[in-house]
């Protein structure tokens, strides 16, 4: 059933149509590559790869440098925001990433997002709609409890929540399950308790809102910030940029939309 077109010989040479030696019955060009030649080729390719990486690295760092300069130029009226104690929830909360956040221009107004629809219910709140939180700055985070990177975000989000919830911040965790075992609302509630997720959870079991908000680029986790008027002011994929998130929240709460 399976045909290779050549009798067994040295792997790469066979794959490239090299001679398989006497009795192969196929006229081919070139000698088989020996293992030492293969290893030598591997080393050469590795060295070239390292050169490419080094080259891209230097280019990327140059780009990052210019970005930082641009950000520094854009910053105006620095506004210190004092960090505080460790997070109240979470097993090993991180130390606050910064104690001073520089607030520059107001966060940009991004593309509007639709209302949350076709939900399977809410947990840890009396709310039934995103509009129930209107007037507040809201972090809307798409997550699922089995997602490794979503869990990695939690200590940072918990710290931001601890600092800014008394000032009017609300977090809405939109739970969009990736796998079957994440669809059970009781499992979501148990995981939330276990992970220290104390804010409202919207159950997006069919992933209707996950698709509607994220379009063709859909990831877990994805974090948005809505201002007091419901406009999207921040959009971030994956872990990281916790300073950017807190700066946006601080800016909106302190200075308004």
């Amino acid at each position, binding site marked *: *059933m*399976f*045909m*290779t*077109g*050549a009798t*067994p*010989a*040295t*792997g*790469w040479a*066979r*794959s*490239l*149509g090299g001679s398989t030696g006497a009795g192969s019955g196929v006229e081919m060009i070139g000698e088989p590559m020996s*293992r030492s030649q*293969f290893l030598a080729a*591997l080393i050469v390719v590795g060295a070239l*790869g390292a050169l*490419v*990486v080094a080259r*891209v*690295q230097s*280019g*990327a*760092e140059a*780009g*990052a440098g210019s970005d930082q300069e641009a950000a520094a130029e854009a910053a105006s009226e620095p506004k210190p925001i004092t960090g505080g104690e460790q997070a109240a929830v979470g097993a090993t909360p991180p130390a606050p990433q910064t104690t001073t956040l520089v607030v520059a221009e107001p966060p940009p107004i991004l593309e509007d997002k639709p209302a949350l629809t076709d939900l399977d219910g809410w947990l840890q709140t009396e709310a039934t709609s995103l509009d129930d939180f209107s007037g507040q700055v809201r972090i809307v985070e798409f997550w699922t409890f*089995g*997602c*490794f*990177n979503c869990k*990695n975000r939690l200590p940072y989000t918990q710290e931001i929540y601890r600092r800014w919830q008394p000032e009017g911040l609300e977090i809405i965790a939109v739970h969009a399950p*990736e*796998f*079957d*075992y994440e669809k059970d609302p009781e499992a979501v509630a148990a995981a939330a308790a276990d992970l220290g997720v104390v804010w409202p959870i919207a159950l997006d079991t069919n992933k209707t809102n996950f698709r509607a908000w994220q*379009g*063709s*680029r*859909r*990831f*877990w*986790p994805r974090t948005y910030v809505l201002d007091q008027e419901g406009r999207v002011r921040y959009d*971030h*994929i*994956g*872990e*990281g*940029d916790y300073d950017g998130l807190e700066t946006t929240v601080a800016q909106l709460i302190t200075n308004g939309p």
Partner: protein
Amino acid sequence: MSVFPLLAEGFESALMACSLILLVPGAAVGLTARAAAIPAIASFAIGVLGLSWLRFSERGGDFSPLVIAVALMAATILLLVPLISRLDVAAVPAGLLAGGAAAELWRPCVGAEFGQLLNELPDRGLSGLGLLAIYLVGTLSPLIVLAALHHLVPDRILEKLEPAWSVVGGTALALLSLATALGFHDELVGKLFEWSVAV
């Protein structure tokens, strides 16, 4: 953005269940291609890179499950049908098709470095493609090891193992294709995830 942390995060992602949807079909292609494992896996990686870049940078490439299933089935047929005896020729298109299809089904783990890249990808030009390639070197590193092992294993052992490997690889590709065509790919990926976590 820094390249080495991105590469490191790629290596880390290779150990996570979310990369199985790339690694399983990639390994299946490599095993089924037998003597042509290296060009097959290289083509698979290029397919993954190309379609991932298109998708994640919003340049296109968002295909329906049916198209993905057809691509997977075509790759399976190219590698398995006895009429196509030149595996060294069939391996490249089969790898490209399977790689592109796997990229369509891939829902990556998004750490801080890869997240930063994804956030910037729509606005980056070819540098974004290069950085994605660096991340994928890490993510697909088990396939590179597989290709190298295939070359380094003694021929007499290869002779005995290759037929069985082809059956396993071909069956895996065909099953993934069938599951995708029937709309069960999410469940299949979920099962892969659960099994890997259990293991």
